């Protein structure tokens, strides 16, 4: 007697959607307004469609001294000008999104906010992909930094990072005042993620403008905690917890700095970086991340093939 094997699905919740980027028609200058998130299941669990296809963001910065030499050496002089770099990334590496780190703000005593504003404007001028901007990490300059980012990107529907517990007001303010969205990062813990989302909501940031970053440890350096945190956040959201029902972004930012990669045989270092990012990113999308970030340009092609193979070329699955 032939039997039927079912997939058991008992979810009730849905993941919210967040839009990044605004086209000319919408008051911005991006080539597209990308929607991330959505869906009502785990990727490939639950029998229904796997949800929206995850996107690849390429990370770059405005002060290459604070970036991995593996990348800066490969990219060449272009890294000294954020606008040039942005243009090159878009033309050559072709990610889905750009994630721009204002690493210049991390220099001690940074105060040059007018330059900062020009830098963001330049990156916007030289690129067309929806943009994620990472501001300062120092509370002392948060207020001015995020005001710059918010203003310079007005109308562009940026995704701004990064809000943390105890350091979220300026990012939230920039998002609310200038129509952007916020990355909310908590240290690998489902309850802390929820708490931060509640704080943001109370400040006035609506749910459809929050992207959860559960913090992604590099492979071998706590990645397993992040992997499970992502699964648990998604799980809680599907069970109906609206304070966790936002799309997630994952970036194992330390991947290129860890010993295994940094101290790899020089002939293999580039490949080591790519594999480290690839294994992490593939695992993150299967754990529920909607955006995965990479820093090595050569990670993009194999990662895209994997995502295409999982979600289909056109994505969406449905």
């Amino acid at each position, binding site marked *: 007697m032939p039997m039927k094997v079912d997939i058991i699905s008992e979810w009730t919740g849905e993941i919210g959607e967040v839009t990044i980027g605004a086209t000319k028609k919408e008051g911005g200058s991006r080539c597209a307004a990308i929607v991330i998130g959505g869906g009502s299941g785990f990727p490939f669990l639950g029998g229904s469609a796997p949800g929206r296809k995850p996107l690849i963001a390429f990370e770059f910065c405005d002060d290459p001294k604070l970036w991995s030499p593996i990348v800066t050496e490969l990219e060449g002089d272009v890294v000294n000008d954020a606008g040039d770099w942005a243009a090159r990334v878009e033309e050559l590496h072709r990610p889905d999104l750009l994630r721009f780190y204002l690493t210049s703000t991390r220099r001690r005593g940074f105060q040059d906010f007018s330059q900062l504003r020009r830098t963001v404007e330049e990156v916007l001028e030289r690129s067309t992909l929806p943009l994620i901007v990472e501001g300062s990490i120092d509370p002392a300059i948060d207020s001015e930094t995020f005001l710059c980012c918010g203003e310079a990107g007005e109308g562009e529907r940026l995704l701004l990072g990064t809000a943390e517990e105890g350091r979220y007001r300026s990012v939230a303010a920039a998002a609310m005042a200038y129509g952007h969205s916020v990355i909310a990062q908590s240290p690998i813990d489902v309850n802390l993620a929820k708490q931060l989302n509640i704080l943001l909501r109370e400040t006035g940031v609506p749910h459809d403008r929050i992207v959860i970053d559960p913090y992604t440890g590099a492979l071998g350096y706590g990645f*397993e905690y992040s992997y499970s945190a992502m699964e648990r956040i998604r799980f809680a959201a599907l069970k109906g917890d609206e304070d966790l029902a936002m799309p997630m972004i994952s970036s194992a930012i330390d991947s290129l700095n860890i010993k295994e990669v940094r101290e790899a045989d020089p002939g293999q270092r580039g490949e080591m970086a790519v594999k480290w990012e690839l294994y992490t990113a593939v695992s993150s999308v299967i754990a529920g991340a909607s955006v995965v970030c990479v820093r090595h340009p050569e990670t993009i092609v194999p990662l895209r093939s994997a995502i295409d*193979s999982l979600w289909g070329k056109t994505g969406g699955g449905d």
Partner: protein
Amino acid sequence: MALKALDIYKLLPKKNCKECGEPTCLTFAMKLAAGKADIEKCPYLDEEARRILGASTKPPIQLVKIGVGERSFAVGDEFVQFRHEKTFNHQPGILVAVSDLWPDDRIQDVVREVRDGVLVRIGTDLRLDGIAIRCESGSAEEFSRAVAAVEAKADLPEVLMAADPVVMEAGLSVCGAFRPLIYAATHENYQGMCALARKFGCPLTIRAESLESMAELSALAAKEGAPALLIDPSAATLSDYVKKATAIRQNAVSKTVPDLGYPIFFDTTVTGMQDAALALGVDKYASVLVCDRLSIPSRNALLTLRQNIYTDPQKPIQMNPGIYRVGEPVRDSPVFLSVNFSLTYFTLQGYLEASGVPCYMLVVDTEGYSVLTAVAGGKLNETLVAESIKKTGLESEVDHRTLIIPGYAAPLSGKIEDESGWKVLVGPRDAAGVAEFLEKEWKK
């Protein structure tokens, strides 16, 4: 629904005879509930209890051992769908494929690589597990030659991959005593393959397209007396694999379809995207992964991912206590106290490296607890620190006597000074602040 320890205890004879090896029936019940004991160990169980307990305490996924000796491994015995629910128990074996079309030396290059290649992480040796010998010649002689070539170089676990039972038997006649995995029985050849599995006492992989026919085939194979099974959902693409593997795992752990309660076999070479397939295999339920020869970077990333995913989420990975060096420290370099919770260690190490100041890390044994937890729970205390300074010979490494302790350990600073005789500087609470701390506090 798994039975709780108390429910199991009620069914036990309550004699406390110790014949099962446990001191009391209650202890035995606890172990049964956790899937860590075998019901057969109890000699006084009545039939009814045996029936109930047998079904309920048997792991939903069969435990299968592959290979013999030092490098042999076991897979299966899994209970949960998500690792955070409890833990994943048995990491997948990764076997590198060779072909019987290859000359011996080419085969043996691969064998040597798998035999000797090692990645040392957190005090553990990580290795690939074995060799998959693929029959592409169609010839029993060539196949047995290839198996012999592998056998000549190493005692590694093997998968014999051949569709024809006659060819398979030729391979098994070389290595059948070493419990290789037979691949694969299908609806067409299962009787022959099962007979071989029975004859050589080897685990057998069955392969079918749909989950329904897979469940059917596993029942047939079990009836034919195959001692242990793996199942290959024969996925050709990544999404096909993930979908099927997820469904198998779900139906197995929920015991909805017990005939799917076997470890999963995944041949990643057919996907054309080996790295992604291997990563997904590790994340999503594969127990045996077959792949083509891996570059060192692929291998390292794969072994590290596997180590990560198969870490018990309720038990932090621990570092070995001792002195660790960051950069090339000298006799007046700073010394940082840290705990042996790996995440704490790696985080601090990363920031120390980023600071560019060579220094020492004194890692003490807090049983894997983070600083905050270790301080709260009394695991991190002045006696431990003082003893660790002595035991590690730290005093002969540096000329100064100043120890930088984590910010959260501040309540202990005075006691550590008294107990160790070292001067204590309280560092930042967050490791991200160490560079600034070194600049402001250490240099002055």
